[in-house]
């Protein structure tokens, strides 16, 4: 698997898109710091962007990479390699190269601005870690979609729809249901609804780091207990890991059944 991983990330590192992605983040980092002129404030603005853009890019790249590397995949399938090796290798290779673009792209401007001396270093690191998680999650989800759809345009459409759903529509439904069932205890429902969407989950994780946990405590005892203690962070991270493992496992299952 390491070999496949190496080759697909090698392949991607040379593709124009990796540079575009890297430069996009580099520019974003510098612009944010220039406009805010304050590392802590830039981190908050960055969060808003990261939880929207990273999943979108992961989704697009996942689908694009799968369809574009079909021939390469077929070439590999004829080699004495396990299917799970091939697909997991490609998946991890893609996720790693996207993550590297993200880490370097954002890391460089913030290092220039002295993130290491800033108190925001931990906020910033948790932001990057969450960004890496989101990359792995959305690449896996979109590869699953691509595996299920031979038609590129359809696959692309579904993938974008999935992103739109998780990034926007889900929260809309979530908000409306909270408002409709206003009279009932909602804290458990809210927690579960948060866990079942990786974007919401990542957002909450970053917010906890950005010290809005007490604000969340405003809403009641269950929240306070969950977000006010280390428990919340541990559970959130575990669920986030599940969000990577389950789609990755689905890639193995789906690719094992597929005809090429």
């Amino acid at each position, binding site marked *: 698997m390491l*070999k*496949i991983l190496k*080759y697909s990330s090698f*392949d*991607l590192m*040379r*593709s124009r898109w990796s540079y575009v992605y890297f430069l996009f983040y580099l520019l974003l980092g510098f612009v944010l710091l220039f406009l805010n002129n304050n590392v802590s404030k830039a981190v908050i603005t960055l969060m808003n962007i990261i939880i929207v853009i990273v999943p979108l890019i992961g989704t697009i790249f996942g689908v694009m990479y799968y369809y574009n*590397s*079909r*021939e*390469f995949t*077929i*070439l*590999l*399938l*004829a*080699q*004495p*390699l*396990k*299917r799970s090796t091939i697909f997991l290798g490609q998946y991890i290779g893609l996720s790693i190269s996207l993550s590297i673009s993200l880490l370097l792209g954002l890391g460089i401007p913030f290092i220039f601005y002295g993130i290491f001396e800033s108190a925001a270093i931990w906020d910033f690191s948790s932001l990057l870690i969450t960004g890496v998680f989101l990359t792995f999650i959305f690449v896996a989800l979109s590869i699953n979609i691509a595996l299920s759809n031979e038609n590129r345009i359809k696959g692309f459409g579904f993938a974008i729809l999935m992103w739109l759903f998780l990034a926007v529509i889900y929260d809309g439904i979530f908000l409306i249901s909270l408002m409709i069932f206003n009279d009932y205890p909602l804290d458990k429902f809210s927690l579960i609804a948060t866990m079942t969407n990786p974007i919401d989950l990542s957002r909450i994780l970053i917010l906890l780091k950005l010290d809005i946990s007490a604000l969340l405590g405003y809403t009641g005892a269950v929240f306070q207990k969950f977000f006010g203690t280390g428990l919340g962070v541990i559970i959130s991270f575990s669920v986030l890991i599940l969000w990577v493992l389950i789609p990755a496992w689905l890639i193995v299952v789906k690719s094992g*059944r*597929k*005809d*090429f």
Partner: protein
Amino acid sequence: MINISNLHKNFGKVVVLRGIDLEIKKGGIFAILGPNGSGKTTLIKSILGMVIPDSGKIAVNNHSVLKEWSYRDNINYLPQIADFPNNLSVKELIKMIKNLRGKTASDSELIEILGLKPFLDKKLGNLSGGTRQKVNLVLCFMFDSELLILDEPTTGLDPVSLIQLKKIIRQEKKIGKTIIITTHIMSFVEEMADEIVFLLDGNIYFKGTIEQLQIKTEQKNLEHAIANILTLENA
């Protein structure tokens, strides 16, 4: 060498293979023929494990290949469409496949024979169709395996290269390799094949030598013999 029994495969509602029973003996060139959509590629890909059959058995050297992967170490495959990762150079691709297989390879001779040397450092995305097919050939023939599966090997080749290809195939045959070829070029089949199998609508319509087919269809020419089958079938 290869034993296939009662192989079925559907793609959605389309039935592609309807219970194929086939035995391919070790050694010699074996051509799989049939009109478009008759299931040739599906059959080949089933042997390779790229298509997963709905039912039936496939054994290579008396070992079932379903859900296996290590047996492919002994198979060289030439895919129908020569498409590769565009960002790699020819050299890198060859190196990579060698690295993945971990077998000794005779790539430099083949590069020489096929005249690929000037293209070694070019990116695969910038190559013409014919050159890519040559790269495809190098990748296929550079390893020493018992079984060779060639899907439309002649696509896009110029006459000189075609002669080279035939030479290579004959050489492989001489050292006792089993070679499975699908093609639409009948002259190629006539010239090369020891045995043919004719697929029609997912069934084996005929299996035997070219002579036997000629006798059966009462046609001297293979192309006509095939045409005869198809017109009979449609009539």
